[in-house]
């Protein structure tokens, strides 16, 4: 009989050894001789996959349906062998983004979403509880069985429950202590757990040695080799079927789903993610794991079937096959092997529980508790106090709470299932993370909302089709519901949803939850568009191997280095924060942190450091509390848009905004230029008008004074001078009138007396009015008019003014005696056109646009300066524009010019400036 004190002493001795290894590894951590820098340690730590479920449960499962236990190990083997590139990508992403946990990974991918992080955490914690309860059950039972040594008395379910419960409770509490001691010893919570990894690798070794030892013992000592066992089993009808795969109905579907489930499990169980991704120190270790891990899986499974068959052959009914590994050596009084198996079992269970709870506690702390605390403190921007203690306390509390919940699950539902079935419920839960995780890693189109929908849908179906029936089966509640469906609706029966019956519960649950999960993910993702942060993160994740260096900083605000140091200090410790910032400053060529420029880079650095401890979502929120957001100016918006268009081709919305902004900027600039130009023109106009007014005034004054001072002036001179005074006075009057006229026209204050007019009549009148000047200068004029034209709506005096101006211009620039002017009136679509053609000096092409501007006379090169104010054509153009028409010139220097203008037929009425002033003359 083994004394219980001996068993307990052995257990604690073994745990002590683990501590020693962990302590030793921590001492050497980071150094060149770091224990975990060996790739084999990484491969062994992956074998934390093999838990008490493997250690005890595989044999149990094999005793029930033969090789049916295998898919659970084929899946991970396939994943590591063929899917190593996925693992490598996960590791790279986690390193670049400083991921702290499984939940952090998924939350980061979907725009650092706090909601996604919380959802993954809830799924992981609730999903893993059955799995943890499984470990408690296994260790408690093995302890119970061992205490009966050498009697093989398997604790009967109902009878021994209270006692087993008590044992399981102690086991749970001791495990919590181990986990706290291993996983949360240090204040710098964000660091890797090198000691823990070393201890886990050692445990993997121990459980393998123990299992192989008992395998060899059973196969070669109790029996004469595998041939002997299989031979005997084949002779028994009840056992021979175990050696044939796919014998049972639906076994193939079951195999496929088990394989898929366990493929996901090796990646998405929180503890697997912890050892495979978070604790990975070197990506190249994956290469070793590709062969070493499958080898481990093979080694630990080789003896499963022999032990199962050996147990079935050796024991009558009544011994739980889950305990064969322990009870077979016990029955043969092999004390050493028995104790070795017990230690192996403890190894398998503690390894799993410690890593799982450490990983889960990080997630609970960073994604459930911390966001809640941040939300409660939202009022005060400053987060005060030292948070390192707080974080550790939360994590330790979470470990105890998770183990307690695991214990309660064990009490509530654990007894009704074999070890393997309990574990598979957990596998099915974490498999719900697979679509959001894997598709998110390779497809940028997945959105935060898609992920939330997928996780929620998958998890809900899992709760309904697996967890609920599990509780019901334990006689808790809802048996009615499980048996008959809610409200007696058969189609909604949790174990045969929509009539899908005849499958085992796991396959059934997986089919529905994966359909729902995937449909929700793809549907919601494709229906919506990812936000800016989401897309940046999607790019980071999907294109992680294409990115050189770090992420582009996403901060556009500044804060002082001191404020950031104080923030970092609260979560990482004062000394560590100071050290980090000093290193950052040194790396940028500053002597101290004083020289640091507060800016996006610095904020980004601080966010990364915080992310390593409290996860990306919380880190982003924390840094935002100290970052002083600055209002964006146009330049910054342009820079942002520029950056955005470089990195992202996503944002149609942004591009639209950019276009709007650009066009707004352009039109503002143009308007501003136009105003400046108008202002300048006004100044020029006033200056020019002043000059033009002074010129006639100068002559008038000069001659007046001459006449005044010389009363005895020669009468001929006197007459000549008086004529000049009169002429210049007229010029002055004309100029003043035209300036006022133009000002009125331009301001829209001119009065228009609109009436129906016959344009032919006006043209004729204008020609006859100017005939005297033409005659004087010896210039011929002829008019070509159609028989009739449609009448127009216009102001007769204004049209006349234009005609007279054009005619006097034409005669002015014609050579005396040889000049010839032609006037034409013609109808064109929608308008009448008047042309005044001369054979005068013509206008240089470069001057053709200028002549319509005020005071631009292009007669300066002539010996005779043309008489005129320089306002005539400007006024004409203004009038024609008001009539809704157009005035332009075609000309060749030396050949003559053609001035044309149009008067529209339809819109002539609309061209009236204001109805109030529109009266018939």
């Amino acid at each position: 009989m083994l004394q219980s004190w001996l068993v307990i002493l052995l257990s604690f001795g073994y745990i002590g050894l683990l501590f020693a290894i962990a302590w030793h590894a921590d001492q050497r951590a980071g150094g060149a001789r770091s224990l975990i820098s060996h790739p084999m340690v990484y491969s062994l730590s992956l074998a934390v996959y093999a838990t008490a479920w493997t250690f005890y449960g595989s044999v149990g499962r094999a005793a029930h349906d033969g090789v049916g236990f295998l898919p659970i190990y084929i899946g991970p083997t396939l994943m590591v062998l063929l899917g190593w590139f996925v693992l490598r990508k996960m590791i790279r992403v986690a390193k670049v983004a400083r991921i702290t946990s499984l939940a952090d990974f998924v939350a980061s991918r979907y725009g650092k979403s706090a909601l996604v992080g919380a959802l993954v955490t809830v799924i992981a914690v609730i999903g893993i509880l059955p799995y943890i309860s499984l470990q408690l059950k296994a260790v408690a039972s093995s302890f119970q069985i061992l205490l009966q040594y050498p009697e093989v008395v398997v604790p009967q379910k109902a009878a021994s429950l209270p006692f087993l419960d008590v044992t399981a409770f102690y086991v749970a509490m001791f495990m919590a202590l181990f986990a706290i001691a291993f996983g949360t010893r240090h204040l710098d919570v964000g660091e890797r757990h090198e000691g823990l990894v070393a201890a886990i690798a050692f445990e993997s070794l121990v459980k393998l040695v123990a299992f192989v030892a008992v395998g060899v013992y059973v196969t070669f000592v109790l029996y004469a080799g595998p041939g002997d066992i299989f031979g005997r089993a084949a002779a028994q009808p009840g056992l021979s079927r175990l050696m044939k795969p796919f014998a049972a109905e639906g076994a193939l579907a079951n195999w496929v789903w088990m394989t898929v489930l366990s493929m996901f499990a090796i990646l998405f169980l929180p503890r697997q993610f912890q050892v495979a991704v978070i604790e990975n120190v070197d990506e190249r270790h994956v290469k070793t794991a590709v062969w070493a891990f499958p080898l481990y899986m093979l080694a630990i499974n080789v003896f499963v079937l022999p032990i199962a068959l050996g147990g079935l052959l050796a024991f009558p009914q009544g011994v739980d096959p889950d305990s064969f590994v322990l009870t077979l050596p016990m029955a043969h009084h092999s004390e050493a092997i028995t104790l070795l198996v017990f230690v192996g079992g403890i190894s398998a269970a503690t390894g799993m529980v410690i890593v799982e709870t450490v990983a889960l506690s990080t997630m609970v702390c960073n994604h459930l508790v911390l966001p809640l605390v941040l939300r409660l403190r939202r009022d005060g921007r400053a987060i005060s106090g030292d948070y390192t203690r707080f974080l550790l306390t939360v994590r330790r509390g979470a470990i105890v709470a998770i183990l307690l919940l695991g214990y309660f699950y064990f009490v509530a539902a654990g007894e009704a299932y074999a070890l393997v079935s309990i574990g598979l419920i957990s596998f099915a839960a974490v498999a719900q993370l697979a679509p959001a995780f894997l598709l998110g890693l390779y497809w940028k189109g997945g959105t935060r909302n898609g992920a939330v929908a997928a996780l929620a849908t998958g998890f809900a179906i899992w709760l309904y089709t697996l967890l609920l029936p599990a509780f019901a089966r334990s006689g808790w509640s809802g048996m009615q519901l499980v048996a008959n469906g809610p409200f007696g609706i058969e189609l909604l029966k949790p174990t045969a949803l929509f009539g899908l019956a005849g499958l085992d519960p796991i396959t059934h649950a997986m089919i529905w939850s994966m359909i729902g999960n995937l449909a929700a993910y793809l549907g919601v993702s494709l229906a919506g568009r990812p936000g800016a942060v989401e897309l940046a993160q999607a790019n980071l994740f999907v294109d992680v191997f294409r990115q050189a260096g770090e992420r582009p900083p996403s901060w556009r605000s500044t804060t002082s280095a001191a404020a950031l140091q104080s923030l970092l200090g609260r979560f990482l410790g004062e000394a560590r924060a100071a050290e980090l910032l000093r290193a950052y400053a040194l790396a940028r060529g500053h002597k101290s942190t004083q020289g640091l420029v507060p800016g996006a880079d610095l904020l980004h650095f601080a966010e990364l450091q915080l992310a390593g401890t409290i996860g990306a979502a919380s880190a982003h929120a924390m840094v935002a509390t100290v970052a002083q957001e600055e209002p964006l100016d146009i330049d910054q918006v342009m820079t942002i848009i520029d950056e955005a268009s470089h990195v992202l081709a996503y944002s149609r919305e942004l591009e639209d905004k950019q276009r709007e902004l650009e066009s707004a900027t352009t039109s503002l600039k143009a308007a501003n230029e136009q105003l400046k130009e108008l202002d300048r023109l006004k100044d020029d106009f006033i200056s020019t008008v002043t000059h033009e007014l002074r010129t006639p005034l100068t002559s008038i004054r000069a001659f007046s004074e001459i006449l005044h001072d010389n009363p005895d002036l020669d009468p001929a001179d006197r007459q000549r001078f008086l004529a000049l005074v009169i002429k210049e006075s007229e010029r002055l009057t004309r100029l003043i009138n035209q300036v006022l006229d133009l000002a009125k026209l331009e301001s829209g204050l001119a009065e228009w007396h609109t009436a129906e007019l016959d344009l032919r009549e006006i043209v004729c009148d204008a020609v006859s009015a100017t005939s005297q000047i033409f005659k004087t200068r010896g210039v011929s004029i002829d008019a070509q008019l159609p028989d009739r034209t449609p009448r127009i709506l216009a102001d007769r005096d204004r049209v006349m003014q234009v005609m007279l101006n054009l005619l006097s211009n034409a005669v002015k620039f014609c050579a005396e005696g040889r000049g010839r002017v032609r006037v034409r009136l013609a109808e064109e679509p929608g308008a009448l056109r008047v042309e005044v053609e001369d054979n005068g000096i013509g206008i240089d092409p470069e001057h053709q646009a200028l002549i319509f501007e005020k005071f631009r006379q292009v007669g300066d090169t002539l010996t005779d300066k043309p008489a005129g104010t320089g306002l005539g054509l400007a006024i004409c153009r203004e009038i024609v524009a008001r009539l809704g028409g157009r005035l332009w010139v075609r000309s060749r220097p030396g050949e003559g010019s053609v001035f044309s203008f149009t008067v529209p037929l339809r819109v002539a009425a609309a061209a009236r400036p204001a109805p109030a002033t529109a009266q018939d003359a």
Partner: protein
Amino acid sequence: MSARVLIAEDEPSIVASLDFLMRQCGFETLSVRDGGAAIACLEEFRPDLVLLDVMLPVKSGFEVCRFIRGNERLAATRVLILTAKGAPSDEARSRGAGADDYLAKPFATRELVARARALLGRRT
């Protein structure tokens, strides 16, 4: 020998008044209507005084003035600039271009005559 006055002005009526005033003083006059013509006749006419409008076609009054100041043989020529703009900057520009005097239009005929005489009196 009477003093020679060159009138460079593009407004015919102003030319007529200036011409009358200068002749009344007994000066010999020549009128040109643009800056180019003014420069062209300088060497031959060798004026003692130039009545120079600023806003001249072809070459401005300032250009003509600078030409005169740049020519050693015209060192004795006095320049009186007449401008219709009346901006304070015009006087400064006139001085800058080397003009001897400056008068804004419209001017008092007596003042013009007095200034012309003064400039020609200093000539010796």
